[in-house]
């Protein structure tokens, strides 16, 4: 009996180790290891074409924008971090009703232009959020300035920090050396459903394609995207998307039927 017990004990130990390793592998996430003072710079370039229609009235709006954001780690605690998100630079061109508005945050805004004054209010006003080690938002003490409607018309993608969602420059995905091309998983919420598929894997990066459908409020959106992710940190080094949004937009109390087609290309890296 003693011999049997000793033999079983010796054989069970590697199984336990394998079991633990396997369990950890299924739930292994990139550990960002935020450090105080870390800075992540993100640059987003967006081209959009939007059409608003009501009766015989049609409004075409074309935009081109380039936004630079800085995510700075202020404090770290329990592997999580407190991050300040600041918009440092905006270059925006809006074509509508035969007129063209060009804004560059490096120049003084034109006080007679509502668009320029609205965009200038977004520069240098940080949002303050708390995230965990995977980049998931825990709390948002302060949001970025600018309303969704305003940003929608000038072709800038708003970033809203909702608890439970990841910050946009990181992706929480099951990074694993066993993951191969074709592996797919889904992330669904009440209004958004996203399906991710591994496109290619290298030693340092993973390319993921995704399709997302967002049905909320008065707007329905469909997005096709491609991500290039740093395997170690989970930072999205590159992202390109093509999306279409249809729905209803209220302008000065009047409802318009709207469609917007958008193409984005963005990068993000640790400075």
């Amino acid at each position, binding site marked *: 009996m003693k011999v049997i017990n000793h033999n079983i004990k010796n054989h069970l130990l590697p199984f336990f180790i394998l079991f633990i390793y396997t369990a950890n592998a299924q739930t292994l996430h990139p550990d960002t290891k935020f450090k105080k003072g870390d800075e992540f710079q993100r640059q987003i*370039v967006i081209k959009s074409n939007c*059409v608003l229609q009501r009766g015989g009235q049609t409004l075409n709006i074309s935009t081109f924008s380039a936004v630079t954001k800085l995510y700075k780690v202020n404090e770290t605690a329990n592997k999580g971090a407190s991050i300040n998100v600041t918009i440092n630079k905006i270059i925006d061109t809006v074509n509508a009703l035969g007129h063209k508005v060009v804004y560059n945050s490096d120049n003084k805004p034109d006080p007679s232009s509502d668009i320029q004054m609205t965009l200038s209010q977004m520069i240098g006003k940080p949002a303050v959020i708390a995230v965990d080690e995977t980049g998931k938002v825990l709390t948002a003490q302060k949001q970025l300035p600018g309303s969704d409607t305003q940003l929608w018309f000038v072709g800038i993608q708003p970033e809203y920090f909702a608890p439970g969602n990841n910050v946009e420059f990181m992706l929480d995905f099951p990074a694993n050396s066993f993951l191969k091309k074709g592996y797919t998983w889904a992330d669904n919420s009440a209004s958004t459903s996203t399906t991710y598929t591994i496109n290619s894997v290298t030693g340092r990066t993973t390319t993921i394609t995704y399709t997302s459908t967002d049905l909320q409020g*008065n707007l329905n959106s469909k997005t096709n995207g491609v*991500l290039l992710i740093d395997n170690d940190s989970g930072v999205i*080094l590159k992202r390109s998307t093509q999306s279409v949004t*249809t729905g*209803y937009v*209220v302008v*000065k109390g009047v409802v318009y039927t709207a469609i917007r087609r958008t193409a984005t290309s963005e*990068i993000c890296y640790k400075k």
Partner: protein
Amino acid sequence: MKKILILLMLVSLAGITGRTYAQTGDRSDWNVPPPLPPGTVPKGAVPGKAGKAATVVPVVDVPQPAMPKLGEVELAALSPVSLIIPVAAVPYQPAFPSLPFETPEIPVPAVPETIDLPKQAPADEITGATTDFPEPQAPEMPATPNAPLTTGKGPVETFKVPLTPGLLQQPVVNDLPGTSFPFTEWSVLPIVSNIHFVLVLPDEKGDIRSKPKALKRKQKNAKPK
């Protein structure tokens, strides 16, 4: 005789000269100077002595007239919200900003098909087809401008004003043809004789109200009884 001739010549010369002088200083009714503007004639002004300066009455306010009532401004009804999705051009994929390190190439995402509109459109937030049109308030009196300085002197423009034009010229009246209205000769209709009439004669008292004796006129071609 010679003296008489000289006398006649002097009288003629005097008459001509007087007529000549009479022609100067046109004082006919045709030359009427315009009335002087108020405040230019100083009171008590006499030749050789300046009169008192006229007092310029400051501008006084008058009651603001009542604002005429206007009907409500009604806006045209809005067209119904379209349920047809407009068409928007697909934008080209912009280039990536430069990274400080090399990265592998990634595929370009496919353009998604148009997604359906939400099932229910929101209602217009504006209510009613009328707009508020507040009445403007009466403005305050502006600052009184400086009164123009006038001395009563200066050239007075005169101009001839014809008072009785056409007085010397009488209208010419030509003989109008007899057929022109209302000078058309009226045709005189023959008087229709009534062969049946009753000649009322007064009675003995001279009163015609009582039934007098009627004198019937014998009818022509009447058959004897």
